[in-house]
């Protein structure tokens, strides 16, 4: 009974990917071939079609460890498949933008997942997004919920530009709060306390924004129940992020050049500076 209740609560809490996919495209999206948890919709974004991809929960997913919005085996490979279809279609003309609608609670933790190579499934998704970006597709990640750990590496972190809704539900971290607390032998509140002192350890999107990795924090939008003005506003940010991505290089260097990155990622910048000096002997 309790387990069921808590699962339902989590399921509704992680339905934000589906909510925003629907809001932005006016479609529920097609289920990607080979997964009951990856929804894909192609819709106009500004003046051109864009492909939107979201991972959604499915309480009946055939892999029990990936029923609450986790990225598991089918999710990773299906995302890779969908993204590579967009790349294959884009051989001529303007490369179609891809929007990752991100609400992913974690990678799937399971024995079967490890045996069958979940690391490769997630790598395949990351590879596909990175390959799309390198081929000239503007890849935009829109964080509407959790962007956790390996799941975010697979679905979103290879984007040219990362945008996030300003909401307490939007979180980025290397490990879910409960798991991180258990692994580091701290309580959740100790962990939250550390996050207030050290921005890289925080979960909330405001702290994340100080790291310089985010292109835009979208404020003033109701992320749970967006009205048409909210949706229009988010679309405009996506359109301008697409233009910005097209105007810039295809690598991730922009994440080191923002004013925020100059402060919080100063060490990342300094390592690269000195490395350039020492790279060639002499």
């Amino acid at each position, binding site marked *: 009974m309790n387990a069921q209740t808590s699962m339902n609560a989590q399921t509704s809490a992680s339905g934000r990917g589906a909510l925003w996919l629907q809001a932005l495209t006016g479609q529920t999206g097609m289920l990607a071939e080979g997964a009951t948890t990856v929804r894909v919709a192609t819709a106009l974004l500004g003046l051109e079609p864009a492909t939107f991809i979201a991972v959604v929960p499915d309480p009946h997913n055939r892999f029990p460890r990936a029923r609450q919005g986790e990225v598991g085996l089918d999710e990773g490979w299906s995302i890779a498949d969908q993204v590579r279809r967009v790349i294959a279609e884009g051989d001529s003309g303007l490369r179609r933008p891809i929007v990752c609608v991100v609400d992913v609670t974690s990678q799937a933790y399971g024995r079967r997942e490890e045996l069958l190579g979940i690391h490769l499934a997630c790598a395949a998704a990351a590879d596909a997004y990175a390959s799309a970006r390198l081929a000239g597709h503007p890849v935009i990640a829109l964080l509407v919920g959790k962007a956790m750990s390996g799941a975010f590496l697979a679905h979103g972190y290879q984007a040219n530009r990362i945008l996030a809704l300003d909401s307490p539900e939007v979180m*980025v971290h290397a490990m879910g709060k409960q798991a991180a607390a258990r692994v580091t032998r701290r309580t959740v509140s100790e962990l939250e306390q550390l996050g207030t002192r050290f921005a890289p350890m925080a979960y909330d999107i405001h702290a994340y924004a100080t790291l310089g990795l985010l292109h835009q924090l979208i404020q003033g939008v109701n992320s749970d129940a967006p009205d048409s003005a909210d949706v229009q506003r988010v679309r405009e940010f996506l359109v301008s992020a697409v233009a910005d991505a097209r105007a810039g290089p295809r690598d991730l260097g922009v994440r080191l050049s923002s004013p925020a990155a100059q402060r919080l990622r100063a060490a990342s910048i300094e390592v690269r500076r000195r490395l350039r000096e020492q790279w060639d002997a002499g």
Partner: protein
Amino acid sequence: MTAADGRRLLSRQSFIELRARERARALLDDGSFRELLGPFERLKSPWLPLQDIVAQADDGVVLARGTLDGRPAVVAAIEGAYQGGSMGEVSGAKIAGALELALRDCEQGRPVLPVLLLETGGVRLQEANLGLAAIAEIHSAIVALRRHVPVVGVVAGMVGCFGGMSLAAALCSWLIVTRQARLGMNGPEVIEQEAGIGEMDASDRAQVWKLIGGEQRQAVGLADELLEDDADAIAAAVRAAFSRGLPAQERSAQVQRYRSRLAAIDPQQPLDGAGLRERWGSVSTQ
């Protein structure tokens, strides 16, 4: 065993027992090792001391330029003995930065052969989001670099390769493992903790290795070469991987193959390492 075999066994230099710096040196052509951002640069983690943890002067990653059979190379070796080989801001930036410079040189027609020695538990939780961001940059650089030269990964043990860095291993064009290696996204302890001991008993080492150990990974095609713990043999295998050139299709791009393999799996049925070998074992990966 012949007398010659016996002598070879006795003279064999263990690769696993070497620290990261010695591993890089053992791989590169004799006398060609040149460390970049060595300990005297004192590029330490800015975050660990704030949390009362002593920061090591190289942040647990050794970068070395040198040659492999005379060709320019770069080795990034993770020191598993320091903070579990975890990726912090500086250690992650060292690897990403080295791969980015190798890419620049490749694009300018001066190929650099990249080798990753992966001994890592993944993100360093004390630097959480900056470690995760650096790992995304490592993935990006590997995918970009692979269009020019193979990226060769080695998981020797004993730490293994986990978390976001297991994706980096999966992105490598050629992956070399030993029997002592483990390669998985989630460490056994984390799975036991998150999914319960019924899902995974992390203390059952034999079972863990049967699931994610180097021998199993190579047998089912998730790694390319299984080697003894022998520094010379590993150095030779790295050179051989570069001589093979780029794979016909990178493993992480083999979408149709793996989707059809997975479609044939029924998650309701029990499956163990031996069962998977029967299904995936005989087919070559590349």
